[in-house]
């Protein structure tokens, strides 16, 4: 299995997609920090202030921005195999396809962890001096912030699994990416904005579950308990992993 994961990591690292999506993840994290800090204390900001524990937890969940890029990276990685027919040499080298699927899942979980760690490092490097300059005391060990960082890393990794599942199911690269981005940037925000659905549906979607796990506070939105969010998100991970296996193992490669 180690060798198979190494093979997948090599496939990933020998094209440039991972680099540009990492740049994107870092940029979006930075943007989140800038937005959160600049909006802090403004009269029309409904969120908790950065002096509060809730506000600081929200700030440190910004590295969750990596999720979008990890899910897209996984989708591109899986669908590229079908698009460029490399699935043929892949299965010739490893005819037991369940092993290929498992290797890909492990690879994109690792990718998710690495991306979120790098984004968290950037976040800390930006937030710590900035808040210090504003005279807001910030400790990385208090206010359950280590837990927030860990929870964010776990949810980013689960988005890697989701990407493998979506890619294996849809197979068409453009369609899979467009579908996923539409869900993350149109469907979820819409659900989070419409009153009744916001209270009854939003918390059950992956975004709501990830927010709950990261102990975020969303104005006007009800979220699950952190452990419930974590379980739900893990459930999504398992479901998409099973989907990836089911759509891959028996299908003819013609």
């Amino acid at each position: 299995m180690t060798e198979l994961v190494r093979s997948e990591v090599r496939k990933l690292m020998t094209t440039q997609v991972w680099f540009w999506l990492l740049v994107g993840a870092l940029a979006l994290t930075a943007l989140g920090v800038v937005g959160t800090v600049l909006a802090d204390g403004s009269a029309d900001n409904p969120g908790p202030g950065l002096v509060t524990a809730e506000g600081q937890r929200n700030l440190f969940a910004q590295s969750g921005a990596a999720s979008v890029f990890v899910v897209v990276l996984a989708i591109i990685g899986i669908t590229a195999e079908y698009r460029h027919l490399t699935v043929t040499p892949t299965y010739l080298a490893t005819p037991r396809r369940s092993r290929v699927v498992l290797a890909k899942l492990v690879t994109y979980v690792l990718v998710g962890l690495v991306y979120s760690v790098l984004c968290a490092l950037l976040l800390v490097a930006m937030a710590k001096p900035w808040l210090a300059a504003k005279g807001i005391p910030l400790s990385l060990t208090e206010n359950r912030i280590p837990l927030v960082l860990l929870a964010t890393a776990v949810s980013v990794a689960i988005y890697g699994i989701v990407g493998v599942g979506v890619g294996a199911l849809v197979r068409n690269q453009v369609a899979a990416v467009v579908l996923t981005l539409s869900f993350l940037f149109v469907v979820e925000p819409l659900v989070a904005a419409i009153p009744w659905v916001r209270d009854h549906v939003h918390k059950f979607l992956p975004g709501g579950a990830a927010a709950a796990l990261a102990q975020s506070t969303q104005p006007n939105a009800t979220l699950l308990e952190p452990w419930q969010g974590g379980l739900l998100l893990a459930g999504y991970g398992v479901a998409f992993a099973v989907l990836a296996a089911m759509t891959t193992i028996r299908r003819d490669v013609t």
Partner: protein
Amino acid sequence: MDESGPTETGRIVVSLLSKQFGPVRAVDDLSFTVEPGSVTGFLGPNGAGKTTTLRVLLGLVAPTSGTATIGGRRYADIPHPTREVGAVLESSSFHPARTGRNHLRAYCSAAGIPDRRADEVLDLVGLTPAARRKVRGYSLGMRQRLGLAFALLGDPRVLILDEPANGLDPEGIKWLRGFMRAYAASGRTVLFSSHLLDEVEQIAERVVILSRGRLVREGTLAELGEGQEPAVVVLTPRPDTLAAELATADGARVERTGPEALRVLGLPARVVGHAAFTAGVELHELRTERSDLEQIYFQLTGDGGSEGGARGEGGGER
């Protein structure tokens, strides 16, 4: 279960294999054997089921019924398949943004083969100068060579190539022929498919001919030519008169092949010429046609050259 003795090693056995794709029966009760030590051509018109058969053999497509084994085992049951079997199925199964060398190294990891083998096989197929270039810039011939390099990673006993000569220039085909012959000469198995009779005639010693998913003939090229009776081709302005005269001869079968042309089976040219003389028919041509493999191919596959002929340029299967 493991009965792969020395004789089993490297032998390909396809047994009562069928594959149904929706309403289409791509492979129909197909059985044949490929022995080590020679180059076997898998010949048939486009759409005959060659690619499907090879894909079943390599575990990429599940058969509807029947079995296909290599060395007595299904591909998926071979513990280190890349070290037993090397295969090239598409003319390009590479990520365009990846270099040829990195493509091979990714599969070195997957197959548990040392990385330096990637450079060795690149050298073997003559791709070393392009090894660190992205596949995007490779010509079709270079892609074929990179595909072959992948197949050779595990130094396999069995080599399976689907339409390997597609896109190769005459120089490349000559090189490929030499390569395949040398490979088989070392006691290993080489099976390659082609819809072009020329290629098979040039490269293979044995052929398996397929048409509409069914086996048509299997054997050496020499065996195929045997038992084919020679035909006498006649050009004359009065073919009907001559045909009537020949009809009285014992065992003669006369076929009208053009407004002034006849094809006579079952009689030597001498007898046909005499009949023309007796009937007072003027002859413009009288010759014996050697039993040509092309004709055999068309006869056996029932394909009257509807796809532009088995010889010559021809299109790719994919």
